[in-house]
C-alpha cells in the first residue's frame, strides 16, 4: 500500500505523458504508413504549436487563442508537406528524409530567433491547470483529462478512417501508392489530409503536454518527437492503436524509471526499447495486420 502511494504520482504522470505522446505518435505513424517517411519535423511542429500558444495568449483571450493555435499548426503542417516533401515525391527516400531534417533545423532556428533562446512560460489554462489530489497524490487536472481525451480522439479517428471516403482513400494509398492513383484517388490531397490530421493532433497534444511542463524552449520538440516515433515503431508502424499503446507503455515506463532515480537513463531507455523491438519483432506489436495500416 505504501509502495502504491509512493509510486502513484509517477504512474499518473506516466499515463498522462503517454496520452500526450500518443497524440504525437499518431502523426508519425500515419505519415510513415503513407509516405514511408520519418517526419523528423513532426516533433518541431509540436514545439511550434507550444510557441504559437505562448505568443497568441499574450494578446488574445484563451477562447480565441486556442482555436487559432490549432488552425495555425494545421496550416504549418500542410505548408511543410507542400513545400518540403511534395517536390521530392519521386526522389529517393533518403532525400525526403534529409529534407525533413532540414525542415526540423529551420523550425528550431526560427523558434530560436523569435524567442531569443529563452524558455517561454506556457500560459496557465483555467480548469486544466488546477491542482487536484487523488489518494494523496497531488497533480494537475490535465493528468486525468489527457487519457480520456486521447481515447476519445483515437476512437474518433479510427471511425473516420474506417467509414469516411477520405479514410478509405488513406487506407488505399498506404496499401499501394500507384494502384490507388490508378483508381482515381487524388493522392496528393490524401497526403495533405494526413498531414492536417497529424498536425491537429500534435497541436492538441502540445496544449496538454506544455500545460504539464509549464515552459517551452526551441529544442523541447526534439526529444518527445523521437520518443513518439519510437512509440509508433513499438506499436507497429502504420497502426494507430499500436502507436497509442506504444506511447502509453513508453510514457509509463519512462516515469517509473524516473521514480527509481535513474533520470539520466529515462531517454536512453526509450532507444534501448527501440533497438530491442527492431531486432526481436521488426513489425512491432500490431504491425502485421495490414488492414490496420493507415
Amino acid at each position, binding site marked *: 500500500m505504501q509502495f502504491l502511494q509512493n509510486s502513484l504520482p509517477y504512474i499518473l504522470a506516466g499515463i498522462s505523458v503517454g496520452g500526450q505522446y500518443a497524440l504525437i505518435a499518431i502523426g508519425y505513424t500515419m505519415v510513415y504508413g503513407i509516405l514511408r517517411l520519418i517526419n523528423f519535423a513532426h516533433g518541431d511542429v509540436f514545439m511550434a504549436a507550444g510557441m504559437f500558444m505562448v505568443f497568441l495568449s499574450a494578446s488574445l483571450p484563451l477562447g480565441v487563442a486556442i482555436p487559432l493555435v490549432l488552425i495555425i499548426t494545421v496550416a504549418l503542417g500542410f505548408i511543410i508537406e507542400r513545400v518540403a516533401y511534395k517536390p521530392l515525391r519521386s526522389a529517393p527516400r533518403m532525400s525526403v528524409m*534529409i529534407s525533413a531534417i532540414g525542415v526540423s533545423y529551420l523550425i528550431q532556428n526560427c523558434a530560436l530567433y523569435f524567442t531569443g533562446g529563452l524558455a517561454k512560460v506556457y500560459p496557465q489554462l483555467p480548469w486544466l491547470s488546477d491542482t487536484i489530489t487523488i489518494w494523496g497524490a497531488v497533480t494537475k487536472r490535465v493528468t486525468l483529462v489527457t487519457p480520456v481525451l486521447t481515447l476519445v480522439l483515437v476512437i474518433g479517428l479510427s471511425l473516420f478512417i474506417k467509414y469516411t471516403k477520405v479514410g478509405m482513400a488513406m487506407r488505399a494509398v498506404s496499401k499501394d501508392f500507384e494502384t490507388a492513383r490508378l483508381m482515381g484517388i487524388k493522392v496528393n490531397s490524401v497526403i495533405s489530409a494526413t498531414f492536417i490530421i497529424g498536425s491537429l493532433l500534435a497541436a492538441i497534444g502540445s496544449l496538454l503536454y506544455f500545460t504539464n511542463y509549464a515552459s517551452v524552449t526551441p529544442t523541447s520538440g526534439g526529444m518527445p518527437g*523521437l520518443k513518439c516515433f519510437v512509440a509508433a515503431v513499438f506499436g507497429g508502424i502504420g497502426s494507430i492503436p499500436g502507436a497509442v499503446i506504444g506511447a502509453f507503455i513508453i510514457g509509463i515506463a519512462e516515469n517509473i524509471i524516473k521514480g527509481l532515480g535513474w533520470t539520466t537513463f529515462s531517454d*536512453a531507455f526509450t532507444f*534501448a526499447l527501440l533497438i530491442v523491438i527492431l*531486432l526481436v519483432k521488426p513489425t512491432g506489436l500490431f504491425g502485421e495486420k495490414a488492414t490496420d495500416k493507415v
Partner: protein
Amino acid sequence: MDLRKNKKRDGICTAVALIAMFALLLIMELTMKSTSILFTVLKKGVIYALVAVSMNLLNGFTGLFSLGQAGFMLIGAYTYAILSMPVAVKLSDSVYKYYDCAIGFELGIIPSMLLAGVIAAIFAMLIGLPVLRLKSDYLAIATLGFAEILRAFFQWDAMGPVTNGANVMRQYKDLTKVTIPFTDIRFPPTLFCFLVSGICIAIIVLLINSSYGRAFKAIRDDEIAAEAMGINLFKHKEMSFVISSFFAGISGAMLAMFQYTVQAAQFKSAMTYEILLIVVIGGIGSVTGSCIASFLFIACNEWWLRFLDESANNILGMNLLRSGFRKVVFSVVIMIIVLFFSKGIMGDKEFSWQRIFDFFHKLFHGKKQAVEEVSGNE
C-alpha cells in the same frame, strides 16, 4: 590519351598544391595574430571536414544511412580528454570536483588521439553487430538512438570517476600544448589540425579507391547484386561503420583540443544533423565536396553571416536583424539547396586536375581549340 602520363601529372599537381597549402598556412600562422577569426574557421572547418568525410564514407559510399556521428565524436572527445589530462590535474579538485578520478595515468597527445579513435571504433563494432542488420530509415533512427544512449551513459553519475559526470572536462592537453617532437617549440595549431585531418582523409580516400571501397560502392548501388558477386554484406558494412567511427572519434578528439573544454551535453542529435547537412551540401558521395562544404558551412556560420546577428546593422528602421537571424537565413539556404540542388556542390564527382586544365584551355583558347589541344597531346 596517355593515362599514366596524366596520372603522374595529377600526382605532381596534388603534391605541389598540398605543399603550397601547408607553406601558406605556416606563413600565415607565423605572421598573423593567432586570435584571428580566420584561424578559428580554418581549424573548426578542417575538423568538421574530417567528420563529414567519415560520414560520407558511410552514407555516400556504403549507402548506410547512419545518424550516430555525434555519439562517436563524443566518445573520441571524452577519451582524449580523460587520457591526456595531466595526473596532477586529475588528483586535484579543479576538474574532478565531486569524484575521485579512476584513471591514474596520462598519455601524450598522439597516443591519446589514436586511442580516442580506437575506443570509438570498438563501441561502433559492438553497436554495429545488432544495428547493421536493419534497413535504411530504421538504421537511421537506431543509430540516432544509440548516440543518445551514449550521451546519457557519459553523463551518468556512476561513471563520474571516469567521465566527471555531467560536468565540464577541461585542463587536458589542448591545441596550444602541441609541440614539435623532441623539442619545446610550439607546433602551429592550425597546421597541426590540417596535418592530422589531411592524413586521415587521405587514408579514407585510399580506402575508397581500394578493392574494399569498390565493395562498399557495390553494396550502395545494389545489395542483392553485391551479395551475388560474393561480397560479404555484413562484414563490409561493419567494416565501413567501424572505420567511419574511428575517424569520427579522432575528429571528436580534435574538437576537444580545439575547444579547450568539452561537455557531453554538446553532442546532441542537432550536431549530427549539421554534419549530415554538410555532407548533403557538398554532395553525397564526394570527398572533396564534403571538405569544401564544411569550410563553407563553418565560415558562414561563424564568420561571414555574423553581421546578420548585429542589431546595429538594421536598415530602414526594421528590427529584423538580431541574435539568431543568421541561423534562420542559413537554414533557409540549406532548405533551398536540399530542395532544388539536391546534388550539392560536387554531386558525386571528385575534384580532378583534368577538369581544371580543360577549363583553362577553354577559357584561353575557346572551346574548339581546347578539344584540338587535348587531342593533339595524345
